[in-house]
Structures are given as C-alpha cells and as structure tokens.
C-alpha cells in the first residue's frame, strides 16, 4: 500500500491510500468528535460533527472527515473558528431533541453550545443511525430501520423481525448516544409482543 503524507494540526501524518481523514487523525492520536461514526460500520457522514478544514492548492474548504479520503500534501485543521462555530450549531440543533444525552452535554461544554437555544422537541433520537446500521451491517438482521424522510424521519423496529431476533441480542442498545433506542425498543416490545414483556417482568 502506498503511503500518503499529509499534515493534520501542524503534525506530519502518514496514512494509507483509501483511509479517511478521521482514521488518519485518530491513528496519529488527534481526536475529532463524532456522533454517527463506528469503527465496525461503513462511514455514514450524517451528523457532520467531524467536519474539518482542508487546505489544498491554496484554497480552504470544509469537509467531513469520516468520509473524506486522505490526499497527499493537504493541510488539515481539526479546529478553527469556523469549524467550532458549525459544531456548536450542530450540537445545539441536536440538543433540541436530546438535551439530557451525556455525550451531547460533554461536547456542548467543549464547544460552548447552549442546549436551550432551540425550542425542545424531545424525540430523543438524533438519527445517527448507529442502531440501524449495526443491525444491518454487523448483525445482518435489519430488525430496526428508518421510516419516512425529512423532519418526519424516525427509527422503528420491524415487529416481525424484532420479535424473533432482538430479545437475545440488544447489542444496539449500548451504541445509542441518547439512550433513545431502549425507549423505542421497549415501546415496540410492549406493542408488538406484550406476552414477552410480561414474562420478563415476572422472571426478573
């Protein structure tokens, strides 16, 4: 594999062709915040929190590091006034839905985000898609998916699959950055197979 040299935050970084900026940065011990990234999953590029500034051939632009492939001789800045400003806005937008998420609260502190900037719509889910993608890509079960689109988009378990697969798995629970999944799962469980949930209560 050919090596690619680039500069991230003033540090010379060696990367392999085909790596993303995020992988290269993390490999060099430079941290970039993410919400929808998971090393076992295909890059998704949805939360946009991992944006960085890339300078190449004299011009600078904002790119999304979890999907941007490394290029030789580019200069990457993981923090800048603009990057921080946009990250702050992204966090504020997400906190309208999940104000109590610990991950979001920690990041909000770092970027000075105000969790009360936008009117609350506590749906809890921030559409990172970790549960959906983990179930599809790693477990290959597709028991949970996205339904609808735009601002009406939400995650939903497919009762026919969930009733067979989820009870003994639940691996997606710990991935959820807002603990929304658990709520959604419990809700569907209650609706779709009420007998199972009563059994678990009596066993517990």
């Amino acid at each position, binding site marked *: 594999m050919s090596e690619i040299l680039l500069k991230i935050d003033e540090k010379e970084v060696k990367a392999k062709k085909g790596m993303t900026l995020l992988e290269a940065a993390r490999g060099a011990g430079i941290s970039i915040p993410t919400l929808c990234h998971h090393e076992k999953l295909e890059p998704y590029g*949805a939360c946009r929190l991992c944006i960085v500034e890339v300078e190449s051939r004299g011009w600078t632009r904002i790119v999304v590091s979890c*999907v941007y*492939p490394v290029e030789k001789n580019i200069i990457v800045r993981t923090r800048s006034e603009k990057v921080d400003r946009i990250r702050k806005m992204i966090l504020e937008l997400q906190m309208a839905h999940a104000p109590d998420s610990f991950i979001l609260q920690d990041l909000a502190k770092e970027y000075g985000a105000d969790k009360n900037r936008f009117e609350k719509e506590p749906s809890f889910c921030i559409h990172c898609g970790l549960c959906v993608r983990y179930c599809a890509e790693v477990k290959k079960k597709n028991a949970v998916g996205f339904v609808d689109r735009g601002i009406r*988009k939400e995650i939903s378990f497919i009762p026919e699959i969930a009733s067979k697969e989820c009870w003994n798995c639940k691996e997606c629970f710990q991935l959820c950055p807002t603990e929304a999944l658990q709520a959604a799962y419990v809700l569907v469980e209650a609706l779709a197979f009420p007998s199972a949930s009563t059994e678990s209560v009596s066993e517990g």
Partner: protein
Amino acid sequence: MSRINSPAELEAFRKSILSERDPNKTCITLCSGSACHASGSREVAASIQEEIEKQGLNGEVEFRRTGCHGFCERGPIIVIRPEEICYFQIKPEDVPEIISETIKDKKIVERLLYTDPVTKEKIIHESEIPFYKNQGRLVFGSNVRIDPKSINDYLALGGYSALAKALSQMTPEQVLEEVKKSNLRGRGGGGFPAGIKWEGSRNAPGDIKYVIVNADEGDPGAYMDRSLLEGNPHSVLEGLTIGAFAVGSHEGYIYVRQEYPLAVENVNIAIKQAEEHGFLGENILGSGFDFIVKVHRGAGAFVCGESTALMTALEGRAGEPRPKYIRSNVVGLWGRPSVLNNVETWANVPLIINKGADWFTQYGTEKSKGTKIFSLVGKIVNTGLVEVPMGTPLRDIIYNIGGGIPGGKKFKAVQTGGPSGGCLPEELLDLAVGFDELTKAGSMMGSGGMIVLDEDTCMVDVARYFLEFLTDESCGKCVPCREGMRQMLKILTNITKGKGKEGDIELLQELSETAIEAALCALGKSSPNPFLSTLKYFRDEYEAHIKEKRCPALSCKELISYYIDPKKCQACGTCRKKCPAEAIDGGKNLIHIIDQEKCTKCGTCFEVCPSRFAAAGKVSGEPVPPPIPEESRTIVRKRKEK
C-alpha cells in the same frame, strides 16, 4: 419491422417513409401533452377523428396527436399544416366548424385565432405569434411535428442520423471532443460540462460503465423534462446512445418519475421501437456497438433528482445522497463509473453531433452555450414552456414571450432554479440568463423553473413556502439539512405570523451558513437560498414583518385586517351576502362595517366588492380605522328628477 443494419439502410428506410408522405397534404396536429390532456385534448381528438369520417375526408387529411407545444395557457392547440394555421383553446364543439370551414373550404375561423392583447390583431400563423416568434426552439421545436408514439415521425425529421454519424464516421474520442468543444453544460441544475463528465467516466478504470437519464424533475411548477420525454422520447434515447458510445457504456437507465405516466408510457414505447429497428440492442447499425436501456420508475422523492440519491435509489435502496468526494462518474451506480445527465442535456446531444460544436456555440453566452427550456409559470399572462438562447434577458422572457403580468399588477420578482433557487427583483430584469449569471445574482439556473411573482406576493412567505417544500422533501440523513431546515421553517413561519423577534434574521443567517458549509448534498447546501436571496433583495419586507408586524404585500393573513372604506361603500350588499363568517353588518343604504372579532380574513369581501366601488380593502401594521358613527352610516342618494 426488420432491423436496420447500416447507416445506408437507415437512409433508404428514411427515404421510403418520406416518399409516402406528401408535404402539401393537409395535416391537423393536436397538442396532446399532459397540460392539454388536462384541458380536454382527448375529447377534441375523438371529435376530430369523428368529423374527418363524417365529412368524408378519410385519407385526404392526416391527423397527428403530438407532444406539448409549450403554449399551455391556451391549450388545447390545433395547428393545421402546411399553412400553419393555429387555433387555441379548442373544445370538441369547435371541431365540426374547423373541419368544414378550414379544412374543406380553406377559410379561417376567426374566433379561434390568437388575439394580440396589445394591438387586438388576430394572428393566423404559429410563427407570427409573439409567444413563439421570440423563442429559439432548437430542442423543443420538433415536439409540434412528432407523434411521440411514432418512430417514423422522428425518422422523417432526420431522427437517428446523429447516431448513425457517430457510429459510422466518428470514434468515441471524436464524439467526446465534439461534445467538449460544444461546452454543453448540464441542464439539470449544476451546469457541469457534460463532455468533461463523460471523459472522466471514459478514462475511469473498469469494463462496466453506465449512462443514466435523470427524468426525476420535481420542482413545483416545472415540466420541461416531462414534456420533452413525453413529446420526443427518441431524441433523448438517441442522445443517450451517442453518450454511451463515447463513454464506453453498454447499459443505460432512464430514471423517470412514476407521477409522469405519459412519459413512462411513451419512453417505453420508444425503447421497444428503437430495439425493433436496431437503434438499441446488439450491433447497432452494424457498428459492433451494443447498448440497452432500462426504465426505472421513481417513487416520488424530490431528493432523488440529486445524482447520488438517484443512483442509490436505482440500486434499490432508500434514495439518500452519499458523499461526493469521489465523483459518481468515477464511482457511481453499483460502484461503477456512471454518467448522469438530465433529459434536456441528452436531447441536445444529437443536435451537436449532427450540426457540429461550432453551430451549437453560436447560440448563447461565453460560458453558457445553446438554448435552455424554461417553465414559465406564476403571475404571467402566457404560462407555458419557452426555449430561448442562453443570454436572453429575463425581461424578454417575461414580457416579450410571457406577455407580462396579468390583471394590471406590478412585477415584483422572478423565482428561478426551483425550490433551492432564488428570487430576483425588478432591478435585475435585464440580467442575461446563463448558469454563472444567475448564480452570481444569488439564484441559479436549476433545471429551468421560472416562477413570476407580482406585487401581491409576500417575499417572506415565498421563502417560507419553499423551505416548507424542502423540509418535506429532505431525505433527513444529515443534521444541517434536517434539523437546520426544521428550525429555519419555524422561524420563518413565526415571522409571517407576526411572532418574529429581534435576532431572527441573524439566527437564520447562522443556520444558513451551517447548511451551506456542512450539509451532505446539493439539496441541503442550497436549502437556505430561498431565504438568502429574498433577504438580499427584500430585506425591508423581513424588517417590516419583524419590527412593525406589517406585511407590505398585504398577504400574510395574521398580519392584515380587512375593512370597508366608508367613503367608497355604496351599500350594495354583495360582501355581506357572501361573507361566510357573517362578519359584515349593513343594510339597504347603510354603509357596511366588518366586525373584526368575527372576521376570519378569508378575503371574500375583498374579492367580491365590485371594482367600480373598490370599497373593501386591507391594512397591515396599523389599526383598522374606527367604525363610522351610526348617525353617519346612512347613504343619502339624490333622487333622479323626472
């Protein structure tokens, strides 16, 4: 039909078609595009067939149902050739007279002609009507002569000769060079040079490559791609096949909206005919080049007009865009090099190959060559599809072709480029239309939507409307688009309801920056445009809404009140009778007064008040004048003296 195996056989076949056609034989063409279909062209067609038979003209007159003529405001349209006599807004009951008078006796039916609104002169011929006269129809022009279900009609006009030329006289590289030289830019929105896109795919590694037609036109009010695909499907197929030859692709897709049933039907018929004639399939025209085309019906998502979302949908998954850091002409459909161009772009290709890049580049501006089809809608006299050379000033399109604003109203803005385009004010009416010119002015070419707005339109509400559309149509994947627009829509809605706050404009600007810089796809990145362009040119309207709770266009319902001017009211009682809320008090010779508590602001009184009185009016940002005292309410009329 046996296959045509060489360019020579094609020319022989074309000759045989032409030899059976007498150019002097009377031919009635009836517009049967979707717009005319809606205004009853099917019934007119039945009536024409019936009358031809009834009046004993079978065999003497040809009848052809064509695609869209573009002058949709006046449909259904009949053109009688070879004289080119044009009749508008035809109803089935007009047909017997047309057949007996014009076809049999060569007399004109005056009442069905176009009347020039200014000179009041009746115009007989299509080419003399300002709507047509001021256009330059290179791509759309054949629509009026072709029955889209007949490949022979297309062949009679020289169809597939560009394909024959490309396959027999040119190498793929030469085709590519010609298209590059023509500087044909993508008609779907981005304006990316087609030749460079094709070259990228041609040079990309891999044996399997795809060419794709984007017929997922979804802008509100836009229907140029629809009309082209419905009216002249073979021109798109021919362009696509030439492109495939240049790129080295053997498989093409047409991604067309399921909501366009006639386009789906006609393009499927066209593919079948092209296969039977040997313009598609194996060893096309004996050249050794193989190419097949499949139709994929879209499931009604606006975002699937975005190239990567379209490809994801073609792969059978939910139509969500993907990052474009590696272009889809290198890694596209199923990870293969894929050239995606819009319907109109493909339809330009046969012209460029047939007539050459030098011919093509004589039309247009320095950086935008050829023509562009616009869908001219909104507050405009001549609604329809217009094709003009790039570089035509907006004013010419709106006034010379479009006939200006109806009802004596004033022009306020023109919205170009679809939902993520922008609004351009009167000061920019002399702007020449072109990709870069429109972008520089804060709007965009988009796929060619052009919505004219008059003085009664509130620009904040226009921004809110388009944002609402985009919020609905976003795929919902990335945060800056989904969440950013959710908040932008909330703020804009509040402003139009009089709940705007100090700081709203700045917050909207900040949300816009996040979307432009960080959204995943073109839909998200351009989603703030409706807001940004209206703010740029109509900031005073935003400020009036926020600071004075006033809607200058008197349009935002929650910021206006209706009232009756006591000096003008003649107590005719019309408004009182029509008011659905029973909010109007009055009586015989008694000046009418609106009870503001009961008024639902439906606007009925304003609409029904006779224009000779014009007593019902609107106010915004100021209180309604107090009702006139009871003692002065009675109108004393002078008795006519005998």
